[in-house]
């Protein structure tokens, strides 16, 4: 390595190291990511079977709640307009942590509300509610599906135990697409 190149390397590394201090993830530049996740949220419904008790009537809508991800909720509202899941209409609600979750069929908890992740998931435990998250360790906290970014693509992991507790049946095809399936121990 010649002296000039070496100097350039050292300078660059020093500059990079100076900027590399970890900081919280930013909230912008996620429109596209949320667009894909919204599409996933809509699609999941077709691969999940809820117990009969989860719906009041044969034509009751599938209710999707979204906490801490308004951009995603907006996208999702556009997607579901005029569409159905398993023959049912779909309705999207923007929620805040602490809002009642009874009657929901799908609940997405965005990472912006990560502070309340544990308590929301605890409240969802045992309900026929498909919880979907995008945070590390969310599966350990009781989420059913957790999004992960792999090589800039949206993938997801599935935990079967919380699904079983809520009497949700997840189709084999969805399990096959998942990056990882955590089976009951």
């Amino acid at each position, binding site marked *: *390595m*010649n002296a000039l*190149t070496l100097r*350039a*390397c050292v300078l*660059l*590394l020093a*500059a*990079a*190291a100076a*900027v*590399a*201090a*970890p*900081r919280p*993830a*930013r909230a*912008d*530049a996620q*429109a*596209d*990511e949320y*667009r*894909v996740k*919204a*599409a*996933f949220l*809509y*699609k*999941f419904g077709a*691969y999940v079977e809820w117990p009969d008790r989860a719906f009041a009537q044969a034509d009751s809508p599938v209710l999707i709640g979204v906490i801490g991800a308004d951009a995603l909720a907006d*996208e999702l509202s*556009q*997607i579901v307009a005029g*569409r159905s899941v398993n023959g049912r209409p779909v309705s999207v609600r923007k929620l805040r942590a602490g809002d009642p979750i009874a009657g929901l069929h799908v609940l997405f908890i965005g990472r912006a509300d990560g502070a309340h992740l544990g308590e929301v998931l605890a409240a969802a435990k045992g309900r026929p509610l498909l919880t979907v998250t995008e945070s590390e360790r969310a599966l350990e906290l009781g989420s059913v599906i957790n999004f992960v*970014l*792999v*090589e*800039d*693509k*949206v*993938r997801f992991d599935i935990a079967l135990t919380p699904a079983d507790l809520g009497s949700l049946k997840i189709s084999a*095809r*969805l399990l*096959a*697409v998942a990056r*990882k399936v955590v089976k009951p121990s």
Partner: protein
Amino acid sequence: MLAARCALGLASGAVLLSGANPAAAQQKDLADLSIEELGNIQVTSVTKRPERLQDAPASIFVITGEDIRRAGVTSLAEALRLAPNLQVARVTSSTYAISARGFNNAIANKLLVMIDGRTVYSPIFSGTFWDAQNVLLEDVERIEVIDGPGGALWGANAVNGVINVITRSARSNREGVLFSAAGGNRESDAAMRVAGPVGEDGAARGYVMGFHRSGTQTVGGTSALDAFGRQQAGFRADWGRTESNFTLQGDTYSGESVSIPALGPVTVAGSNVLGRWNRQFADGSSFRLQAYLDHTERDDPVQFRDQMDIYDIEFQHGFRLGTQHSVLWGAGYRYAMDRTLVSLLVRFIPADRDLKWANVFVQDEWSLARSLTLTLGAKVETNVYTGAEFLPSVRLAWKIADDQLLWSALSRAIRAPARVDREFFFPGNPVLPPNPVGPFIINGGPNFVSEVSNVGELGYRAQIAKVASVSLTAFHTVHDKLRSGEPAPAQVQNGASGYTNGVEGWGTYQASRDWRLMIGFSELRQHLKAAPGDPAGTSAQGNDPEHQQMLRSLFNLTERHELDFIVRHVSALPNPVVPAYTAVDARFGWKARPDLELSLVGQNLFDAAHVEFGAAPGASEIPRAWLLKAVWRPDR
């Protein structure tokens, strides 16, 4: 900007936007994808449009970052072997001959290569010095390999193909710090990268890397004098918001290869810096402005000795016109200052030359019907040798069904003269008194004009039952005014011509959740006619295999263990004869810890050594190689 051009080009016929409300149309398309397809969408696309390669009317193969990781390769040139639509031959430890659709040799000149929008082929010979080009492979998002002419978008030189290397945005370096080290019987490699957020809405990374490769033996049993070492450092910063964002990146490198001891080593060096501004508007239109400086140095005592400074600025603007048209237009200017020295074989007269290129292009993607898209494009590019060149193309894409596309294209591509076509004198220092210099055997090519290729293509692509995909492309190329020689004292002429037919294809099959297979092939038939009296005949046009096949298997033994194979067969090269060979590469990967990945790679497993290019006895034998690699991401 070139990257965006590519991305926008790829989007040709992709998402059928309805025009009245593009956002709603995109929503609809995303929600109509299968869950498998959703998982394949890049969420940081250059155009911010979800693109489905499935819909691009061209022969495009994409090597993903994950493909590269699982191949265990350690250089950009080796990574390109993963594309079944390229011919990649390793000439020596440091040099490669890489081409598409034929005309391959170490100075192959019909392929355009870009790294993050920066054109890296050398105006000296319109080809790429592969020993000067590398990237930190862990930071590559994807490599798009587009076979066939791309002149209407990319300009002269995109005759037989375009290689577009795209590194990840610094924002996507979520794992932060990375250390990698590899060592084996043929090479040793090391790299370090740091990355992280900067301020409210930015991110940056910096890296250093280096390697050393052992020299090879020739067929004749002597040392090929080609041991090679190289080091590189660089950075990339991305900031701003989706509506308006910026990229600043740069690299600096140097490398040295052993050469004939009496003449000294071959050295390469270079530095570049590039800035790019993307702006997106609420109505769906966008523009991009890019500029870069690229300084390169090469000191090869036998061949090329030059220093070049290139300044390049480009602009493009995309917008929708009515409900049926998606228009992309742009312009660019490029200026190069080249300074050469005399080597053993080469002298340029004049030694120093400034080169200029200017271009303007427009492309219209016209949705004739819901399933039918016509893409009309043309570029006018000027150069200092032949003035303005016209590069038109017409592409028609018919979406037979959601998962099937039939496309065809007609294009005119040219290879404009490079310095080596016009100002090349051979040998470097003829000493035959009474001449102070000369006489030369080759005396430049004052009459050399652009090589012209007219290309017809027909392609089919399909996704089958969610688990398999297939792509097939047939082409017929008519070449005219190809470079030729003549008996000494010679000038470079345009006397050769001919045509090339070929078929290239590949397929993938997800055999099970943990097992993925890929096959690829290319068939090439060349019918070339040498210029009368050309002592080199058609051999100067390149040396290409008629058949090339590849099988790749990616198997997850467990969640933490991977076992991957690649089998490649390349048929014999005709002139000079290089025997056919089959190479088997294998990789065993082990995620020892969440932050540590180990892999053992074996290349050319069942063969002690083989020649890939060049004439015996001087040709290098590429030997069996093994490599142990560790990648540690302490932040993960």
